[in-house]
């Protein structure tokens, strides 16, 4: 099959970007979308042009590095997969495919399709953990945890930190990301002692980083390659409210760790 990609080119954060068209010829429908970009890049290199920068690593949907908007959808047309798990058989011969980076104020563009998602790390630094010293843990079976709770924590923990939720949201909110991490830790008995501080700190950092407010449209969940449920957002809202009320009475320590 043959397709044309209309791809975003931008030298760096300071420069203006623009779309550029490139032909991708003689493709096999079982090729991955990124393998198609590999082919285009080999052609560009051989033609003495600058290849398209795009982020990728594991190419199996787990590292969260790949991050393309494909025809206006984060990670492309199929649901429950990342860009690297998108295959050319999802497109038609002759298609013009529009490829852009994830766009959000908190994710500045580095080059072409690559953006800076370090704001997610900052949110993690402020509370995405349980304060436990190495070597001081009790026996792993000392606290039984019901299978349902453990499974639900795992559902939340499946987040790959790719940022599709932010890219999908018209307000560029990071609520699904924050609620998944906070949700995982808050559900588990180990995470309970720091629950309030965690929620307040992570939300505050999210706001500072320039992410927008959640207006409950749940485009995030629909775009999530791991299909993380919007129910974690509702849960985070409840936890946030409870923690805020307590903090008025100074019952929440302002720092963790």
């Amino acid at each position, binding site marked *: 099959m043959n397709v044309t990609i209309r791809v975003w080119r931008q030298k760096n954060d300071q420069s203006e970007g623009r779309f550029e068209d490139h032909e991708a010829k003689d493709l096999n429908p079982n090729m991955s979308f990124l393998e198609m970009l590999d082919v285009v890049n*080999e052609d560009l290199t051989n033609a003495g042009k600058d290849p398209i920068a795009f982020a990728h690593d594991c190419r199996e949907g787990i590292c*969260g590095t790949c991050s393309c908007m494909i025809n206006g959808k984060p990670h492309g047309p199929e649901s429950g997969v990342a860009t690297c798990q998108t295959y050319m058989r999802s497109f038609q011969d002759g298609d013009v495919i529009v490829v852009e980076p994830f766009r959000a104020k908190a994710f500045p563009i580095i080059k072409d399709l690559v953006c800076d998602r370090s704001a997610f790390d900052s949110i993690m630094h402020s509370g995405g953990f349980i304060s436990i010293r*190495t070597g001081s843990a009790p026996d792993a079976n000392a606290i039984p945890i*019901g299978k349902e709770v453990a499974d639900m924590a795992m559902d939340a*923990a499946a987040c790959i930190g790719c940022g599709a939720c932010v890219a999908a949201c018209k307000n560029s909110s990071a609520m699904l990301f924050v609620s998944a991490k906070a949700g995982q830790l808050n559900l588990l008995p180990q995470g309970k002692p720091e629950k309030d501080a965690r929620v307040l700190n992570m939300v505050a950092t999210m706001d500072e980083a320039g992410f927008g407010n959640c207006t409950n449209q749940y485009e995030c969940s629909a775009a999530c390659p791991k299909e993380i449920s919007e129910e974690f957002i509702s849960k985070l809202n409840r936890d946030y409210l409870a923690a805020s009320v307590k903090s008025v009475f100074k019952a929440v320590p302002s720092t963790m*760790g």
Partner: protein
Amino acid sequence: MILDSKIPSGPLETKWEKHIADGKLVNPANKRKYEVIIVGSGLAGASAAATLGELGYSVKCFTFHDSPRRAHSIAAQGGINAAKNYQNDGDSVYRLFYDTIKGGDFRSREANVYRLAQVSVNIIDQCVAQGVPFAREYGGLLANRSFGGAQVSRTFYARGQTGQQLLLGAYSTLSRQIGLGTVKMFPNSEMLELVLVDGHAKGIVTRNLNTGAIERHSAHAVVLATGGYGNVFNLSTYARNSNCTAAWRAYRKGATFANPCYTQIHPTCIPVSGDYQSKLTLMSESLRNDGRIWAPKKEGDRRPPNEIPEEERDYYLERKYPSFGNLAPRDISSRAAKEACDEGRGVGETGLGVYLDFKDAIERLGESVIKERYGNLFDIYKEITNENAYEVPMRIYPAVHYTMGGLWVDYNLMSNIPGLFVTGEANFSDHGANRLGASALMQGLADGYFVLPYTIPHYLAEIPRDPAPPTSHEAFSETEEEVTTRTQRLLTNGGKQTVKSFHKRLGNLMWDYCGMARNKAGLETAIQEIPKLKEEFWDDVNVPGEGSELNQSLELAGRVGDFLELGELMCRDALAREESCGGHFREEHQYEDGEALRDDENFSHVAAWEFKGDGNAPERHIENLEYEAVKMVTRSYK
């Protein structure tokens, strides 16, 4: 060169405890004054950075990834071993130790492996406390599964995403330390050289991948936790960006490289489907708990699998290895698959594949149980092949998956360069000639949480209590010069061929001559061909773009440049090791039934290679392996 393993004296069971007690401590008030550089934020790096930061050292952690959470460890699927004996099935520290030694075909260092088995139990405690959502039983206790090479159920797992969950656990504790300011994180920073001052490792030179800035960083000690080098084969189950540069640069600065030829070819991966392919995908070994592996008995049998009657199927692992069956270790299972395909009994379009069949398990347990256990793996398989493995058996073939070789380290995980420590997959220490499933995650976390935090202080307490050298020191300027010269040369080379095309050609040479089966003639050919390819690379590689911006071609060019040298060393090592052991199978050395024939008399040693300058042959040194507690036997899984 004498490779002193520094194994503590005394009985195996108490060596580690004694070693901890004998070591010097750093005064708590002084810890902050010691700077430690950790390169890598996978399981081995993140766990070490978090723990050393927590202990009070000033830690700087580097990764070429944009976030520590994206290290290749994230992709591990199946699980992590620990001698908890929660299943009451007779497991113990000794049994895990013995299985690992035997699995490694008696080519690993006994004392290191025993320590690994000892601390394995602490790892699980630690991870659960961090909130790692391991699989649980209905009663609320932790669940286990079995992995290859073991007859007990000691593998802990989090669905098919164990590596992800363990790494996110380590990343969260690391995040806490970054927030507290004890660890300074340098993402998007690729180490391109090691800096030695008076023979000690004192720093690194990095390139910021987003801005191209070349930077100098100094410290009292440097840790490489930079992962394995399987991408020397181009196609592998590794993340595309995994590479050998950090280890290779250290080798060129004098660190010896041990057993480079020991590579693991994993039996259950999705077969190659086309020339455009960029990576191979693993189907976790855990599938072999319930899946049965077979090939048609008849040569060239092209019927769809469901039309091949039971009596015409060869469940070759069950036939050849009745006591371990489908759970035979990886090296053995991979060779058996290759054998079936070499006999013309392979399946799929290319004939390079065998079946992994769940029909019986689905009949016995029901589809929902299989879905619960392996659902995400079946989904991945569907995505890639467009086939439904609940209905037709999976097609699988071996692929490069792990490298047991790595920089040589002593019992303290220190290389032969003082102050240079190496952990995780980047070192050679614990898996001998073959790694058992679920023990790489165990080793990475053991090294980072429980070993390095004891052994680095021993080193720091012994060196003069001066500040780390200033980055204006001439050793830093000279090293930076080396980096800029090499980078400039790549950028201004003006050649015609792409970096990827060289990587592919190298990969083909390695797979053909240094893959699942090796022989003298093939290895000699590769030792001729690879240097020629290297020369052609430096003459004719085309690296577009500039050095002062994100330039992925430049990144890959540097890495492929190093792979071209490492590939040659791997072939030299494979040629020199005139025996078969674990993942290293020399066709000249096999029993009549095709099993690997070890030569304990002449090769019961670690081979560690020393760089002797470009154009000179490297020198092979040996560390003899002495077994106190176990008797070396022919490894049998029959």
